[in-house]
């Protein structure tokens, strides 16, 4: 299955956000991170649910220095 994560095409084996985050960031439940799928925030409480579908557009964000 292929999704778009932060603008890059990514092949994933599992359909959970937790697995995606483990693959991309090396942690399944990283602190200070939020995820949107197709423009909707997905709460941390369902990161272990198999909700990702082929072609989904996923954004993974965190806090950076900013004014």
């Amino acid at each position: 299955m292929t999704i778009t994560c932060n603008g890059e095409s990514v092949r994933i084996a599992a359909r959970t956000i937790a697995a995606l985050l483990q693959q991309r960031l090396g942690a399944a439940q990283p602190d200070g991170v939020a995820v949107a799928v197709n423009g909707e925030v997905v709460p941390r409480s369902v990161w272990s649910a198999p909700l990702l579908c082929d072609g989904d557009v996923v954004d993974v964000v965190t806090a950076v220095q900013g004014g």
Partner: protein
Amino acid sequence: MPDHPVTALSIAGVELPSRLLLGTGGLPRVSLVGPVLAAAEPALVTVSMRRASSLADGSLLSVLREAEVRLLPNTAGCLSAREAVLTAELAREALGTDWVKLEVIGDEASLLPDVVELLDAAEQLVRGGFIVLPYTTDDPVIARRLVDAGCAAVMPLGSPIGSGLGVLNPYAIAAVRAAVEVPVVLDAGVGTASDAALAMELGCDAVLAATAVTRADDPVTMARALRLGVEAGRLAHTAGRIPRSEVARASSPMTGRVS
């Protein structure tokens, strides 16, 4: 009865520890964040939400959490209400705060707010339970519309973001202050301590500074200077300045002079 000088700033019913809000954008090293926070003693500290490529960025968050500062995520860089609302929702999920510094930029050259999109985003976020602090123009009419929409404060610009030009239109800032009942936070344009002091003398309740500190030659010392500038301006505003006069008024008695 004017406010007592030591009256604390309160936004949305939350009493804050100072009247200086601090942006972290532009600091050359994360290791400077801690010393700058210690010097500034900020009421709120802004951060931006960006795509995470690694968790190295997380070290900023650990420094901020260690300092036990209240975070104010911003929606910097958003060009539409839709983008700003999604960014605010992501910030709430990531950081566990429903406070947001709402920015919707209309023009990437001037970085001036798009007030039509801003008002739309503010209405949506207030409905969603957010405490909304909008970065806006120095226009009292727009400020009142934002407050009518439920914003907890308004943050008019002194001059364009990062310009360091200070308060270009003090009359407009005073007019914003007079137009609304919520706290007014001078945002954008502060270049040095006297700019912050002037904003406070005009009646602003707080000042937000980012670039003035982070791109100063010595950010830690400038952070302290801004804290003192804010405090001096607040005290001067509370004390009540003398009226301006076009003619001299002697302060020494004219009677009893040696002739």
